[in-house]
């Protein structure tokens, strides 16, 4: 168990570094110039993908959860790069803070226990799962590479659309998001509050029921 985690860690580190270097080079070539932003992006992207793989690949739930923190933070960096500082902050606070902590609590409560030793009833489907993922990845590549996303960039270079931070310095800031919620998306906003309420009530009920069951034993 420990050995395999170590192996995974070493492979991951090597892969990450090479990924960063490769990605930065590729971006530099593609955009025709090297900027600091590209480097940050490369690091964050590599982190996101790397930690994601770790989440799925690591055998223990605790390690996986810690890896998830890495992935979440990497995504937060990506958000910052995308001029979404508010979302990035929330990502860190809610996700990396609250949600992951919740995971850790549960894991701490239950203890790291191995998977029940029963045969996988779906072992025949394992290759199918891989195949499906490959097919979907291929599809995504096909779609992304055949879609001309550069159109929008050209428009901006022509100066027809104001660059963010120019006319709208608050882009991605709390005020803009708040206005968007209140002005345009009041119903979804209220709906989310309802969802949260239901979740809270549901959690309480579940916990209560579980406690009762435990007493009943």
């Amino acid at each position, binding site marked *: 168990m420990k050995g395999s985690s170590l192996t995974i860690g070493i492979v991951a580190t090597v892969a990450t570094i090479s990924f960063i270097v490769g990605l930065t080079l590729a971006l530099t070539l593609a955009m025709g110039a090297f900027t600091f932003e590209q480097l940050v992006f490369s690091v964050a992207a590599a982190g996101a993908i790397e930690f994601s793989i770790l*989440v799925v690949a690591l055998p223990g739930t605790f390690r996986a959860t810690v890896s998830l923190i890495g992935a979440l933070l990497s995504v937060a960096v990506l958000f910052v790069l995308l001029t979404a500082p508010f*979302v990035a902050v929330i990502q860190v606070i809610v996700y990396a803070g609250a949600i992951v902590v919740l995971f850790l609590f*549960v894991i701490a409560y239950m203890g790291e226990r191995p998977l029940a030793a029963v045969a996988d009833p779906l072992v025949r489907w394992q290759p199918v799962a891989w195949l499906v993922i490959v097919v979907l990845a291929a599809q995504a590549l096909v779609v992304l590479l055949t879609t001309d*996303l*550069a159109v929008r960039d050209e428009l901006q270079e022509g100066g027809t659309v*104001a660059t963010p931070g120019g006319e709208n310095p608050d882009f991605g800031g709390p005020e803009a998001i708040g206005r968007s919620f209140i002005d345009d998306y009041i119903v979804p906003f209220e709906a989310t509050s309802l969802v949260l309420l239901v979740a809270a009530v549901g959690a309480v009920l579940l916990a209560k029921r579980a406690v009762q069951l435990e007493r009943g034993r």
Partner: protein
Amino acid sequence: MSGSGVPLLAYLLVSGAMFLIGLLGVMIRRNPLMVLLAVELMLNGANVTLVGFSRFWDTTDGQTFALVVMVVAAAEVVIGLGLVVAVYRQRLRLNIDEMTRLRG
């Protein structure tokens, strides 16, 4: 993307990769906790796309929805973990394949 910097395509590729990795995790992991973690990955992947396009189209809508997604994710985690704990207390054996009946 103000000329220089990183094109949207790169973000989308990262997002897609995260999503697919999460999907794979959902499909092959048998521990419900791990499945929940994988679902978080998928949601994050989707969020990257949302925010990426929000930047791309220069509107905050995508960010707004990313926030909504986070809220939903939080709710989902609360309920999911609650279920996991409930199952754990009853059966002491965590395998998603064992949870085949609605009434335990």
